[in-house]
């Protein structure tokens, strides 16, 4: 939470709020969702339907916000090639396609269709975001993008998605170990912390060569 506050405060104080609007929006929504979840958790308990509804609906909203944040970074990467319009077009198609696919999966369900749909959409968008982030990283390398902030933000998103995928694998491989259940909530802090560090340590004019990040030193 404090990392999120730090990121938003830095963005506002240094007048980058609008420049990284969708990243800020995600962090603000994430903090609000956490507050709402904590409130519901405190008053209704972990196994209550109220907490379940609050959790899955806010998660769906946050996944859509994260998807939009990935698209905003893609727009910036492809902006210099004047491909922003097409990036938005692909984003809309992806969102509509994912919504359609999720609905097709849950359409047979007769009970609690909306909750099941929110859960399915959240899961599907997560995987779309994962694939999109790796494609974006490929584009960053191919286009020789040098803006440090942009490169580090894309990298941190890639790490975040990958860490969750690893976490998911661990949950499936070792469900009996309770510690695995706590890994995902701990990872929730990663994105605001890494974005805050990026914004604090690097100026807008900082440049790096991404090829150096993947080159194996000999």
């Amino acid at each position: 939470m404090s990392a999120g506050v730090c990121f938003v405060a830095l963005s506002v104080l240094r007048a980058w709020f609008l420049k990284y609007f969708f990243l800020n929006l995600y962090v603000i929504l994430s903090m609000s969702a956490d507050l709402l979840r904590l409130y519901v958790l405190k008053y209704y308990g972990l196994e209550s339907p109220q907490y379940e509804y609050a959790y899955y609906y806010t998660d769906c909203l946050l996944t859509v916000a994260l998807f939009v944040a990935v698209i905003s970074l893609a727009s910036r990467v492809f902006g210099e090639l004047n491909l922003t319009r097409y990036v938005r077009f692909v984003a809309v198609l992806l969102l509509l396609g994912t919504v359609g696919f999720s609905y097709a999966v849950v359409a047979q369900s007769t009970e609690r269709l909306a909750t099941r749909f929110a859960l399915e959409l959240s899961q599907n968008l997560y995987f779309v975001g994962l694939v999109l982030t790796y494609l974006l990283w490929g584009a960053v390398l191919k286009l020789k993008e040098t803006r440090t902030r942009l490169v580090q933000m894309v990298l941190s998103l890639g790490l975040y998605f990958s860490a969750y995928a690893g976490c998911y694998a661990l949950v499936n491989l070792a469900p009996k170990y309770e510690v695995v259940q706590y890994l995902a909530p701990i990872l929730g802090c990663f994105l605001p912390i890494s974005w805050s560090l990026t914004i604090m340590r690097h100026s807008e004019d900082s440049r790096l060569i991404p090829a150096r990040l993947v080159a194996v030193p000999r």
Partner: protein
Amino acid sequence: MSRKLGAMALALGILVGAMGLKTLVTTRSNSAVVMANGVSPVPPIKNLPPAN
């Protein structure tokens, strides 16, 4: 026009890739869910009926 077709093909490719990856990952799953947001504990999904 060709760029729009290319964008549509790209979107379709990403969607197919993502759903394929999800199917691959969840085939051997124990119905656990991937929750990628926030620090709150994940509620048990036992209350939710299966999709089919």
